[in-house]
């Protein structure tokens, strides 16, 4: 393992230990379970974020776009509201966490394919043009979500909104269990494709020339990405700029092109970032701010600086 990987792994381990045991009364079961639950959620989210961002960037052949920047997460929330609207809050389908998850994921997969066919396949398109479209799509989805939420129930607007998202403090055990199953199954499934991902980064022509069914592989990966982003949004809500931040740092630090290693490194960095932020929220900031606000500010600033650098060129 390279030196950077060792350092990152140690740091991640340290953060996890700190998170669980800092000023903790080990005998207090309530607090300890709470912390372990939150830590577990963050681990899952780190994994999903790392995989979906890195692979998305390989597929779209650039290091600037991420699923969150293309509005995936906002689409997830919108699809939940749409389902609520279409079926009513009494419906069995709506109340079942599994089925509402499947519904939203299906919508997001369709969206992935549409984006791929319309925007990514033709590599002559300017990356920033695609990015602007992605950002505006995100704005469109979130504005429409607000509008529909108000239309559903203007009195209970806030209630609908908070019931829609779970935030870190409100994840339940069964949601976590489902998420774990989904992520584990998916990662096992895609594990054998890691080497093929490496070939993908050479581009479509070389991948086909080397015997990799590019289009089929991309479709499978987009499906995986859609599922993983759904999981992370269902667990902690939209974390729009964290992906680009994590991938930027990962590519800076890594000296290899192997996807298995890069994704592992990205997961470690994401975990450090998020446990660190959540730790700060719990012990320094006294739960004032929410996790997504804080890490989005950090990630957003990084992205902002990235744009400045691009402008200078």
């Amino acid at each position, binding site marked *: 393992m390279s030196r950077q990987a060792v350092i990152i792994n140690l740091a991640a381990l340290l953060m996890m230990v700190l998170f669980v045991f800092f000023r903790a009364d080990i005998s207090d079961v309530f607090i300890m379970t709470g912390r372990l639950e939150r830590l577990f959620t963050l681990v899952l989210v780190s994994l999903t974020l790392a995989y979906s961002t890195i692979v998305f960037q390989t597929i779209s052949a650039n290091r600037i776009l991420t699923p969150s920047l293309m509005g995936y997460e906002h689409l997830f929330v919108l699809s939940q509201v749409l389902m609520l609207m279409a079926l009513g809050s009494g419906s069995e389908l709506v109340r079942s966490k599994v089925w509402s998850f499947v519904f939203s994921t299906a919508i997001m997969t369709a969206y992935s394919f549409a984006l791929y066919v319309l925007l990514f396949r033709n590599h002559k398109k300017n990356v920033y043009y695609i990015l602007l*479209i992605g950002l505006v799509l995100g704005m469109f989805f979130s504005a429409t979500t607000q509008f529909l939420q108000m*239309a559903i129930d203007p009195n209970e607007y806030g209630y609908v909104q908070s019931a829609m998202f779970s935030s870190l403090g409100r994840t339940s055990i069964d949601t976590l269990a489902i998420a774990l199953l989904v992520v584990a199954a998916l990662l096992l499934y895609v594990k054998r494709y890691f080497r093929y991902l490496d070939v993908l980064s050479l581009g479509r022509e070389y991948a086909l020339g080397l015997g990799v069914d590019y289009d089929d592989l991309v479709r499978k990966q987009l499906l995986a990405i859609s599922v993983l982003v759904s999981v992370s949004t269902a667990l902690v809500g939209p974390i729009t700029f964290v992906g680009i931040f994590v991938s930027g740092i990962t590519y800076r630090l890594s000296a290899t092109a192997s996807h298995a290693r890069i994704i592992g490194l990205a997961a470690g960095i994401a975990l450090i970032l998020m446990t660190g932020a959540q730790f700060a929220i719990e012990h320094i900031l006294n739960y004032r701010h929410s996790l997504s606000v804080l890490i989005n500010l950090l990630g957003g600033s990084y992205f902002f600086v990235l744009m400045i650098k691009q402008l200078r060129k």
Partner: protein
Amino acid sequence: MRWSLLLCCLILFAAVSVLLGVERLDLASLFHPGAGNRDVLWISRIPRTVTLILTGAGLSICGVILQQLTQNKFISPTTAGTLDAAKLGVLFGLLFFPQSGLLTKLIFGMFFCFSLTALFTFSMIPVVKRSTVLIPVFGVMYGYILNAVANVIGVQFNIVQNMESWMVGNFAKTLKGQYEVIYILLPLFAVCYCYANRFTIVGLGRGFTASIGVNYMAVTCVGLMLTSIMVSITLLTVGSIPFIDLVIPNLVSLIHGDNLRKNLPYMACYGAITLVVCDIMGRVVIYPYEIPCSMIVGSLGALLFLLILIRKGR
């Protein structure tokens, strides 16, 4: 669209807006209002409709001015962080002078709006290229950062209970006694009209401006000042209304070209009509409840902007 036709549409929709509401009014009451009706008319309906018209016109004009100054069709107060800068300014006003009235908030809003937008605009000047998409992306990020900072400050110092709904554009609160500041927009429109030709010249580039003898810096600053004042006023009166300042100028330039002096009245009219119609929709969809106008404008506006982007991308 012909000018007279446009004006008729505006008057028609304005009339609908005045008559629509929880308290039913009919056409006759416009001309011979009874005692009760008169109150509703003068306290809420007419102020609301006037604000809608002036805000729609004002924001569209701000949008087209910023477009000319930055020579980029996708830059507007929505995508240059201007709305968010004004928000941040008002927040600071609340932070430092919590007891002071409207004027202080306005001044803080204007100041932040002007300086932050000027910062953005003047940084973009060396990078200017007509078709670059990177600048609006950068502007959106800029706005996002300002918004996030406002979020953090607002929550940290307990200024605002719910940052999500603070400053969401809502015309329901325009009541007599609270909305009069919007009338300041009228003289500002006149100033914009006077400067329209100069803005067009600046929109053709620095070199051209210099060779004609127009002071690039001065005109740009005047434009930014006008925009900041107008955006701050609308923000304080009704909250933030996104996308209308981006979509209307683009649509008008598609139909009528880019002569600012000629287009300014059209811009104002189209903007006013759009906002009135969106507000009417918001009042009708879940009658008797209301959906804030900015949600409708935001949703439709984003969609329209997407279509414009896709069309330009071909």
